[in-house]
């Protein structure tokens, strides 16, 4: 359990200027090293001693990880591109607006000026038991302090509970899943490309991490294919305050319509489970249906099938249902 809080621990700092040099460093230091993007998830975790890396590898000096490139009607976004840059990018705004809105809904202006897309999708959970240093499952212990009769768990999961009830709090993650984005991951062993949907892990697969990133892995870019360019998009985020607060529930929708009929759709909800939840069943049920109140009602009910609310987060069930209804109804 963390005892020292509010001051930064000491660490060695590496500032490579190429991906190869960064890979060599994280390969050499293994689990003792931690990657530093904008640092807005990392510094809190360091100050609370949730993680205690011997070395930080700062990616800020690597030009090849920066910026947004057009590739075949889609985009390749360097992992170190800031959320502010994504939110104001003309093509992201005009063709992939769901991502622009999601990036623009993160934290505060200063957080978006510094926080990166790579860091936003790779961030850890904000479960405060875990983030306060309690030795829970996620921290290698054998209990979940957020799932006891007296636990304060208003922000926690309602789906796929498996010992740990923490949620993935990212705003951009559901947008990227909705866009069928691909994550480009490199390590000293080579490059692999993973669908955004498969980038995130639930506790059933690995209770100690939120993504497939292993020690030695670097997320170099996020590819947004042309598939959904110019589709009908929606992004909604419900939170306590308009600034700073993480989503209680957020939802990203991409939809292709013709003659009032939903031809294809992606519906992805986050902050309700340990990973962004793509609503496959709902998507299948509404494909080919008119975009009307009846379809919306059906979608809303299907979306909450199997929900297992905790003591203080029953509201998330109604919220999820209503957000899905609204996404369909428009």
């Amino acid at each position, binding site marked *: 359990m963390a005892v020292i809080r509010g001051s930064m621990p000491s660490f060695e700092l*590496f500032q490579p200027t190429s991906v190869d040099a960064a890979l060599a460093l994280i390969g050499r230091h293994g689990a003792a090293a931690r990657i*530093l993007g904008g*640092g807005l998830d990392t510094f809190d975790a360091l100050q609370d001693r949730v993680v205690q890396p011997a*070395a930080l590898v*700062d990616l800020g000096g690597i030009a090849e990880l920066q910026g947004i490139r057009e590739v075949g009607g889609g985009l390749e976004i360097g992992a170190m591109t800031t959320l502010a840059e994504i939110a104001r990018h003309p093509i992201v705004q005009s063709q992939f607006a769901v991502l622009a809105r999601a990036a623009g809904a993160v934290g505060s*202006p*200063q957080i978006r000026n510094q926080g990166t897309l790579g860091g936003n999708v790779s961030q850890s959970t904000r479960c405060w038991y875990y983030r306060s240093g309690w030795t829970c499952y996620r921290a290698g212990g054998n209990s979940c302090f957020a799932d006891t009769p007296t636990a304060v768990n208003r922000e926690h999961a309602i789906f796929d509970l498996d010992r740990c009830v923490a949620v993935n709090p990212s705003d951009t993650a559901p947008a990227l899943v909705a866009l069928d984005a691909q994550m480009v991951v490199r390590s000293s062993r080579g490059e692999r490309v993973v669908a955004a949907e498969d980038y995130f892990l639930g506790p059933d697969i690995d209770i100690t991490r939120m993504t497939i990133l292993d020690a030695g892995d670097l997320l170099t870019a996020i590819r947004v294919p042309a598939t959904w360019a110019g589709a009908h998009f929606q992004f909604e985020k419900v939170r306590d305050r308009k600034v700073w607060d993480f989503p209680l529930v957020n939802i990203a929708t991409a939809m292709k319509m013709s003659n009032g009929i939903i031809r294809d759709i992606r519906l992805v909800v986050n902050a309700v489970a340990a990973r962004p939840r793509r609503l496959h069943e709902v998507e299948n049920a509404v494909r080919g249906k008119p975009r009307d109140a009846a379809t919306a009602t059906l979608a809303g009910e299907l979306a909450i099938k199997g929900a297992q609310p905790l003591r203080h987060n029953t509201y998330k069930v109604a919220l999820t249902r209503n957000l899905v209804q609204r996404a369909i109804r428009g």
Partner: protein
Amino acid sequence: MVSRRSFIKGAIAGGATVSAASYLFRNSGAALGQAPAPGAAERLLALNVNGQLRHVDVPKEETLALTLRNRLGLTGTKVGCQRAECGSCTVLIDAVPHYSCSVLTHSVRSRQIATIEGLASPTGALHPVQQAAIDQQGFQCGFCAPGFIMATVGFLKTNPSPTRDELAEGIAGNLCRCQDYDKILTAMMSAAEHARRS
């Protein structure tokens, strides 16, 4: 009379001598400090702050807010939360507002840093945003003012003629605990107008 401000500045100056002395001490061969691991960042760095190059000896884990305040004596930058949650530490890095409590000093080595101390002209004329804050009595205790002013200066560079709503959103990353936000917004809107005219 010793004011609180001059006392703090004196203490910082004293500290600076000590750290400079210990730096020399290390370089004289006494095995006090460890040599950085191969390829790791050097502790000694040059920072460009308000147009001046300042040489400082900074631990890897130190944040910019602490370097500015404790090593460079620039105590205009305030530290409220140290968690990216209040905005009082806002400075400009390459003209863009950042929370200096959540930036490692070593990561801004080759960047231009601007703090509240650098806003006024060398002749002492206040920056239009500072002047508007005074004219409109934009702040009460003033603790949040340097952060708000830097956030506004940065925002106005990207949008010199904002609507009130746009400005409210642009400087939403700053908290105030005693003035009313409406008054701050009025002052900052009038600042935008001053800035456009000057």
